[in-house]
């Protein structure tokens, strides 16, 4: 098996991304006139982007083996099923 060498990411740059994305989020939520449905989508997209930055670079998931990534990823579809199933029940 071949091992790939990884360098450390620029943590301060990731912090900068997180800061800028947070400022954009707050500005979009409080000061923009974007329609509500679009605003929700934009804010969720930004939140997921930020969460992925933390998971990938601060928690080093990007550099871990697949089998460890799977441990963290397994509950995510279960979480989606839990919420979607309950919402669907409410709608029907």
């Amino acid at each position: 098996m071949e091992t790939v060498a990884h360098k450390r990411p620029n943590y301060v740059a990731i912090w900068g991304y997180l800061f800028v994305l947070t400022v954009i989020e707050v500005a979009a939520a409080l000061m923009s006139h974007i329609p509500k449905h679009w605003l929700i989508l934009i804010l969720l997209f930004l939140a997921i982007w930020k969460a992925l930055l933390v998971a990938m670079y601060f928690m080093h998931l990007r550099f871990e083996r697949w089998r460890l990534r799977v441990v963290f990823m397994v509950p995510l579809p279960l979480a989606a099923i839990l919420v979607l199933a309950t919402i669907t029940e409410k709608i029907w």
Partner: protein
Amino acid sequence: MPHATATADLMRPPFPAEPGAGVYSSKLGMWVFLASDVMFFTALIGTYIILRFGVTEPWAQPGAVLNVPLTAFNTFLLICSSVSMVKAYAAIADGKKYFLRAVPGKTLRDGGLKFWLLVTMICGAAFVGVQVVEYIKLVGHGFTPTGYREGSLLAEHAAANAVRYGAATGGLYGSTFFSMTGFHGFHVTCGVISMTYLYVTKVLPEKYSAQDYRGIEVIGLYWHFVDLVWIILFTIVYLI
């Protein structure tokens, strides 16, 4: 078949790995715990989403009840604590056990594990402190886990502007808000207590080294997860 190559990988600590997942047991244990915590927070956030979008009456608008700028500052504090935590990890991985050390030709001193972990603890404690202040102010203004308290300032506002303050859904709003942020605050408090324990018992006596810093990596995973959850909570609870 590719042959094995030995390369120095800065992202893979030099610890004996358990067979299977390829990581040491305490790290695997933390990842399994975090996976279970994902489900815990999903239950809370999912309940909030279902209640919020299931009710026909209006929900309180962002910024009507909650202090968004104050919480945005708190979010900034937690992001800063996350980067200081990962700097603590990088410092001890490089064998920097010290607090601060002068670097020839540079004005700023180089931070070691003791410095960056202390910064993380201070930012985490400040986050909890700001959250406590926020709770005290909210309850003082009449926003409680059971909704708007009768006769309070917020109850008067809700009576005057039922749509903006979500007068009919105040009880659901209060219970879900305090459940989600309260459990998250509890996680942050546990993290600060754990880091303080590690700081006193392991970091100050310099028991961690570049050869073994498993405790720092494991508490770091927990801390970043707490930050990750807050990123989602801040958006869903305060901004949407």
